[in-house]
């Protein structure tokens, strides 16, 4: 299954190995892991909760992966996104893409992350010394996603 939403942690190495396993057409595997930082917008963060919209989330991620497949010459792709309570250094998301060549693997991996950041229904609530706060969306994420529309 190319898209998973789960509370459990994931073994990135095993997932990447499984994605390319046994396919001798693969020459390139690009991957991305997002992790929890201990600071955001200059405030220390002690923990966070990732919420999503069950039912829509998997559908939105599958749509993003399908769009990456349509735009880039890739062999396979995987997205794992965690939800629930996380702490600094915890893994949040894994995106991995296989292709014959590195250009398409890199492009597709970045495309999926840029779209995930702006289109998949996840929300982060951070715990700081001042209490909890919903994380604000970053304008730079919208800019990154919009770039792909321009490059279409």
């Amino acid at each position: 299954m190319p898209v998973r939403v789960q509370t459990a942690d994931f073994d990135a190495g095993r997932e990447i190995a499984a994605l390319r396993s046994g396919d001798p057409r693969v020459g390139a595997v690009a991957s991305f892991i997002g992790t929890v930082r201990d600071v955001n917008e200059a405030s220390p963060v002690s923990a966070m909760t990732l919420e999503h919209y069950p039912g829509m989330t998997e559908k939105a991620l599958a749509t993003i992966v399908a769009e990456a497949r349509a735009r880039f010459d890739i062999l396979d792709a995987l997205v794992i996104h965690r939800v629930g309570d996380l702490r600094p250094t915890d893994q949040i998301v894994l995106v991995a893409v296989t292709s014959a060549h590195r250009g398409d693997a890199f492009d597709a991996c970045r495309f999926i992350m840029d779209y995930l950041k702006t289109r998949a229904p996840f929300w982060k609530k951070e715990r700081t010394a001042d209490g909890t706060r919903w994380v604000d969306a970053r304008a730079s994420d919208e800019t990154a996603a919009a770039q792909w529309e321009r490059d279409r």
Partner: protein
Amino acid sequence: MPDSSAPSSVITVRVVYLARLRDAFASDGESLAVRGDAPTVGAAIAALRARGGAWADELAPGRAVRYAVNHEVAPAEASLRNGDELALLPPVTGG
């Protein structure tokens, strides 16, 4: 006594409040009646906004809220049908 115009139809949709909006409305969702012959997402939002308070604030024009109908992003002009699920999504921050 019945009105002389054709009776306006009413549909019921399930509204879902997510993340910041769930906190602001102190609710994760509700059943909402939407009136009109061709009810739209925008009509449902207008009905919520008319409640005033947090509803008027959070759903004021220009606030960054997106809508999803039956788990797909939809514009304010999208039609609603009886039984649809309408979700109100603050800007997403995953990844």
